[in-house]
């Protein structure tokens, strides 16, 4: 089997401007290459510097990246002008690698407006099937029949991992596929009102992602600021 190549970042574009009120804004667009076939979760933020002093830090963004959806855009804004205008920027990022998963087939409400609650079926020895290592568990799934389509609310817990960030990607397969991702550090979490088209069967897959360390891209990029 060929070895998975290391994930790398390509800066596609960056633009920054400052207006006459001293409001600085902009962002950078990155492509991520060598994404594993089962996708990755990523968090990132921009660190802006002025003569090596930190001038501004952006909010964090997150995304679920696959081979066909492999770019992120990180924006930044704040009250900065004059001799505090940044001269370089870089991306700080963290990857979440696939860790564990749970598959479920929640029961479906037959009539319009009805809602079914499903809990984990038990195995031969009484263990819950919607559970994986470290007490990560799908606690329950509520499926609401919304005029023939489904609105799905999933309740999960991350057990021992509480207090550190964990990523989850919830996928629902009916006639099509919908997915939603979430990064959280609380012991439990609800992913509410996910949409799925109506169908005879619903297969749900919950993938847990484990965070790696925060990393700074090794190069601080010089930036040009346009005055508008």
């Amino acid at each position, binding site marked *: 089997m060929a070895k998975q190549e290391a994930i790398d970042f390509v800066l596609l574009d960056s633009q920054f401007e400052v207006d006459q009120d001293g409001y600085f804004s902009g962002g950078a667009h990155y492509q991520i290459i060598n994404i594993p076939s089962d996708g990755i979760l990523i968090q990132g*933020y921009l660190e802006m510097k002025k003569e090596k002093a930190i001038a501004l830090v952006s909010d964090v963004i997150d995304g679920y990246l696959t081979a066909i959806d492999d770019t992120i855009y990180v924006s930044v804004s704040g009250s900065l002008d004059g001799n*505090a205008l940044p001269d370089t920027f870089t991306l700080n990022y963290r990857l979440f690698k696939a860790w564990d998963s749970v598959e479920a087939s929640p029961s479906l409400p037959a009539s319009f407006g009805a809602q079914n609650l499903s*809990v984990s079926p038990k195995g031969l020895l009484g263990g819950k099937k919607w559970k994986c290592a470290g007490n990560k568990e799908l606690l329950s799934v*509520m499926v609401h029949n919304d005029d023939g389509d489904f609105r799905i609310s999933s309740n999960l817990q991350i057990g021992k991992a509480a207090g*550190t960030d964990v990523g989850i990607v919830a996928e629902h397969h009916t006639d099509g596929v919908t997915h939603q991702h979430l990064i959280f550090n*609380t012991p*439990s979490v609800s992913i509410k009102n996910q949409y799925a088209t109506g169908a005879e069967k619903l297969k749900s897959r919950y993938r847990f992602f484990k965070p790696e360390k925060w990393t700074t891209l090794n190069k601080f990029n010089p930036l040009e600021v346009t005055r508008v």
Partner: protein
Amino acid sequence: MKNLSIDLVEHHRSDIELSSGGYVTISVEVEFGLIPETPIYIEAQLLSLKDGVVVSISDTYPHEVMFEHPRVYLSDSFHAGNDQVPDTYAINFRYFTPEEKYEIDTPIPPEIARQSGAYLIHTPKKGLLSKEKWVSGAASVDSIVVKNVAGEDDEIFVNVSSSKPVSTGFQLTCQSGDSTDYTIFKIFDKPQLASDPLRVHLTGDLVVGITGFAASDWATTEAAVIAERIQADDRVSETSALDSDQADGGNVSNIGGNTRYFMVNTGGAGGEVTIGRISREFVEHWSSADNDELMEVLSEINSESDEVSGPTITESGNCPFYDIDDIEHTTAPYEDNEYEVEEVVPDATAEGGYRSIRSVVKGEYSRLYGRERYSEEDDGSDEIVPILTFHTGEKGSFGRVIIETSGDFDPNKFCVGVMETDVGNFIDSYWYDGKLIEPDNDWDDSRTNFSSATVGYLALTDYGSKENYLPGTELIQELLEEMDRDNSLEVDSVQSKNPPTDKKETPKTNQSSGGKSEWVFVKDKAEHQTMKELNMTLTRFENEAPDEDGDISIDLEFEIKNESDKDISLIKYDLVVEQDGIGTIGGQTRNTEDCLLDAGEVFNGSCWLRLNEHHMDKSSSEVTVKLYARVYEREFFKLGSIEVPAETNTLATLTKEINSNLLDPSIVVGMVRRPDGDEDSKEDRLEFKASVTNKTDTYVEDLELRIVLMDRTGAEDDDTYDTVDTLGPHSGTFIEPSFWGKPKSKLKGATVDVFLKAHRLIGTQIISETRTLSS
């Protein structure tokens, strides 16, 4: 991680409110024990359980908890349907305890202190081998960015970092001279953060303080029973939180059913502004003077000095300028303040009658309207009057706004009206969810920083007058509808970012007032479907022989049996008669029948139509009868009652939150009593206006606002209504029924009851049968 013995010690209140649509809101108030004297923060989430199974988990928020106020309020809302209504709850929590505060002395060089627009970045000093560290626990300050802002508080933000993100919180303070500010508690979501802005007036060196907070491990409480179950109750009138609390005679209110209270602190900068008519000569004489010269002469006029030169300030002589306020006089915050929202509970023992339980959000004001009171050139028109605008710029507090809701505070529903003047933009009115909220100014406290004045000319137009921006006015209704549309567009555009992968979507454009165009995606799926459960049959088909003009009368009857589980309240049908080789030879359209058809019930319909033999193939007596039926479900609301005003030209309004699947929940009905005819007329008319917005992706049909006039004995006197045939997806309109020629004697002590109904298409059915015309 720090692990004290802080734990949940008492469950004070827990209730669940059920709405008819299957949504539930759970609210609990719990008390924590062993809280130290220094405030700590508890991050908590509410788990709702049904028969031991978790059915929903709330988001988390940090709550400030003090020794004196050890309670935390939590809530969650979700769709539970009929069978998943929770019976118990549990709480996940962890707490953040403070580390030793670290203070940083930040000298401000003169060029920064004096020069507007100048910036400075402070960083820890570097030595040969080491670097100064600005650290409190795991939180540290990387840099402090200072901006000098002209005429206002200067702005500071701090770049902070943590070696243990997610498990570290921080709070910042800053002080310069007597001026101070602080940030709300925040948890690091990543290793570095830029803080919220801090605002102080730089009068000397700046001292910035950071307090890091360390998190405990997460803990989970035992499940507790939800004590109270409340059916959603749509209230027509609301009393203030304080009033209801005091009426109960309690010291600390229980939070009362589903009502939650949010206090908006309106900002620290603002002042008093007056605009009034003065003499044209005074304007002409002083219009080119600068502020100092004008302030000097105004001061002389105030002091009744004999040395006042030039023309008198009014036509009738000099008077103190603060008496010149016949056009505008208000004390208000500036529009560009940042507002801050806290969730509060009524507490008669707390200063101001409310106790804060958590910080909710800080934000910039969203504007509903701008009312222009700028001075302009004298164009000689009748509307132009010479004016003095006077303003004292102040720092302090300029009112708080208490908002009562049944859910969480929604920043999209909060907006302000603004009065725009030569001396600044002042908040004129506060609105939440389409309702005007009066600010509470009892606790205001401010000090004057500066004064300014201008003279000029003002056009007294309707668009500047506050009367046109009151609840129920046409202009305000339009603006609120526009804002609702913009908000729903934002929601839709956010939702559309992750569209279903297997659905075709038809884009359509909407144009907002700001000129920006947004895409709204409409599901390419007929919400209405052919209903197999709608059993339709023709039961009678009889015709007469052609008359002398060749007209053939046909009587036709049919049955519709509702075999679905839905209630049908309206049936519309069209009848088309065709003949082979000819096509359509007649029919009848736009038939509408009100009904209330429960599951299993049968509707009998009949219609009469006329064909003409000259439109037909006379050699054939066979015709095809096609019946196209559409059935609708109905939403019906009794909005409430309004007392008819005793005086003419008086406005009365009714505000109602409705629980609708089709329409936006906030409905405001305005009623004005006006003379019907000349002043001596013995009759008056009542005019009503209400706006409605379709919040769905489907059409709303046969919308009706009905008004029933009840005389002073409570007997029904008359009724009237106005309708809208079709209201498109995500669109709005307004309805205006009225009563005309009502004798004044009839209106004395009268009230009106107001009802709203709307229909949604739930199914269609077609039958096509061949029938033979009898000779």
